[in-house]
């Protein structure tokens, strides 16, 4: 798998590159800003781009803007946004604007190379990746008594993994159950929450996240 890394902090860039190289991935380019990133993506045609959300010049949302541009020019390239913020707003904005193969991970997560490689593979498989910390925060949100309380413990586990962007098969593997069992759980959950099931994994993730944030 060929990867391009964009982060304005050289230490981070280098660290990620070394971990990925050690894990047997090919780092095609390392850049420090959005303009160089777009140029590198055009030149090297990678499978995935790992992009820091904050880059020069304004250090706000350059990463998300760059993700748009990559997707517009090179629809096959997965984009994994690295962020220092546990901020559902950015993650949901990303999912809302870019259909499929986008991820939002907290920065410290990437130094656990197994995590990082797993995220890149999931993106390559067409899944979505949302940082577990964000999902945990949303799952733990204080709420009035409602449909979420009717979910069983196992159903809550499945819901969290859905929100992280895992496919049914990936959830089944994670929970050591059959895919059919997961399908049954998902159907149950969506029924209880009043959500319509959507075969599109991406839209399913967004619907779950939106529900967790603001149950209608």
């Amino acid at each position, binding site marked *: 798998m060929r990867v391009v890394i964009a982060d304005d*902090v050289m*230490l*981070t860039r280098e*660290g990620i590159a070394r971990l990925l190289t050690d894990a047997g991935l090919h780092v095609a380019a390392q850049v420090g800003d959005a303009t160089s990133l777009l140029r590198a993506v055009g030149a090297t045609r990678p499978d995935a781009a790992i992009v820091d959300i*904050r880059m020069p010049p304004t*250090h*706000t*949302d350059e990463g998300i803007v760059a993700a748009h541009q990559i997707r517009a020019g090179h629809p096959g390239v997965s984009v994994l946004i690295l962020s*220092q*913020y*546990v*901020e*559902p*707003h*950015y993650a949901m904005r990303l999912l809302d604007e870019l259909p499929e193969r986008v991820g939002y991970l907290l*920065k*410290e997560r990437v*130094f*656990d190379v197994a995590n990082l490689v797993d995220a890149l593979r999931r993106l390559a498989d067409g899944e979505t990746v949302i940082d577990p910390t964000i999902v945990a*925060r*949303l799952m733990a*949100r*204080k*709420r*009035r008594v409602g449909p979420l309380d009717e979910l069983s413990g196992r159903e809550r586990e499945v819901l969290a993994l859905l929100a992280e962007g895992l496919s049914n098969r990936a959830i089944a593997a994670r929970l050591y159950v059959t895919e059919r069992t997961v399908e049954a759980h998902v159907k149950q959950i969506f029924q209880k929450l009043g959500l319509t099931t959507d075969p599109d994994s991406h839209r399913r993730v967004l619907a779950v996240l939106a529900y967790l*944030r*603001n149950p209608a």
Partner: protein
Amino acid sequence: MEHAEPAVAPGRLRAPPRLAAALRVAAGLTGLAAAGGALAIAAGPGQFTTYAGRSAAGAVLTSCAGLGMVVAGLVTVTAGGSRRAGDLSLLAGLTWFAPVWAAWQDGPPLIPSIATVAAGFTFPLIVHLVVAHPTGQVRTAAARIFVTAFYSEALVAAAALALFRNPYSDPGCLANCNVNIFLVRSLPRLARAVETFDRWFTATAALALIAMCTARLARSSLPARNRLLPVVGPAMIFAAALIARAAVLQVVTVEYPFNPTLFTIFAASSCALALLAAGQTSGVVRARSERRAVARIAASLDEAPAPGGLRSALASALRDPGLQIAYWLPSWRRYVDASGEKVSEPAVRPGRTVTRLTRNGRIIAAVTHSDAAPDIDDHIGPAIRLGLENERLRAELLAQLTELRASRARIVRAADAVRRRLERDLHDGAQQQLLALSYDIRLARAAAQADGNGQAELALAGAVEETAAALEDLRELAHGIYPAVLADAGIAPALATLADAAPLPVDLALAADRRYPTQVEATAYFAVAEVLAEAARAGADHATVIVAQRGERLVVTVKVTGAGPIPPMVALADRTGALGGSLITNGDEYTAEIPCG
């Protein structure tokens, strides 16, 4: 620039009203009698010896000038002008008829004798009147000496002529050539010399008057000049006519009314006197109406006009809608309007004049008004000055309030900027270093694992956990100082994230999903954050946050349920107030209103 003293206050130096009225009636009747008698004499014995007898034009000129001065005198006294000026006008009008009365050769001898003496006083009276205009008081020492010297000379000349001039032996006599009951001894050469001296002294005095009037007009402000000119201008023509008369009489000896040059000079001086009378009258009447209008303002000051109210009152009183008042704030070294807004220093422009008004020796305001208005310094009495001072003080308070508001808002902005920078510094500095540390520890752990050093691997695994916890804490800290999403995406996403992590269930109703000025967004955000934190501490079990824009204000409401008493949030109220907004507590409902226009 000339500043006249305030006009004499009504009622001061006055005869009791009934007596004053009687005197006025008497003076009016005397004036009418003097005019009527003069016309009768002109038609009879004075037919060939007086200008009034020479022709109908002469009669009309004589009457208009004399009666005009009498009327001007009466109006001046009646309309509350200077009593002295009124008396002077009246006397000048009466003496104007004296040369005609002197021609009553077949009447009682006393009358032509007195008339001959009185005729010499018309010009001194006019000089006095003009020099004292418009207040009726001669204020400079030089002017006082001038007036006194002129009266003295007229008195001495009149006395000398009365005692030593024998009309029979006067080659220059015409109207009165036979009556002088005051004659003590006939000294024709002395009398002749006195007459010549008196003529040339008068001519010199006339020249001096013209010079004084010119100088006075030159140094006067435009409004003062406009007010002086109707009286001073005719007086200068009158004086010029006297000089011309002296020159002609040096040649022709006898003042023969049928001499065309002399009649022209007489006509000019008559017209000048009539104009002077008209100028005096209109000035007094106008001053009275203005004084009354200004007095009305003084009377209405009890009603405490709104800021700027005094301006419109003065503008309508002086019939000058463009009138502007700028208040002087000495401690700020600047002029402000009634609402405390800074204005540029009032300057004289074409058609506009600036009058600086003082109270107790200090400038309180500068009034920019029309040139046509009188010198308003005269008209503005202590009551209005007090009103102006009150408005000035209020303007100063308002200016201070504006400055205070601006400075509070600046403090909030500066504090927010510091928070924002601190948040960035934490992310870009400490957090990056912690990340690097966490990376190094992971490498070390991998190395320990490869070496089979189980103890080190365990310790380093613990260190990885601790760095992760430190990163988590740091992230929470930075978020609490200033959420990046608030700066990047605005109030609605920031409040959504706040609700995600709130210690109690929070429902959001965000109807204002657009960007507002940074300090407005920050204030709204921190208001919600603080109320939620306090409510949770007080045991609240639920909160609803409503954000909406109402007109020019962003209105943020937090309704909580189940909370115990919440202590007053002074810092939050200060912060909202600093932006000109308010924080209102109504039971369990907290509303911050922040101007966002």
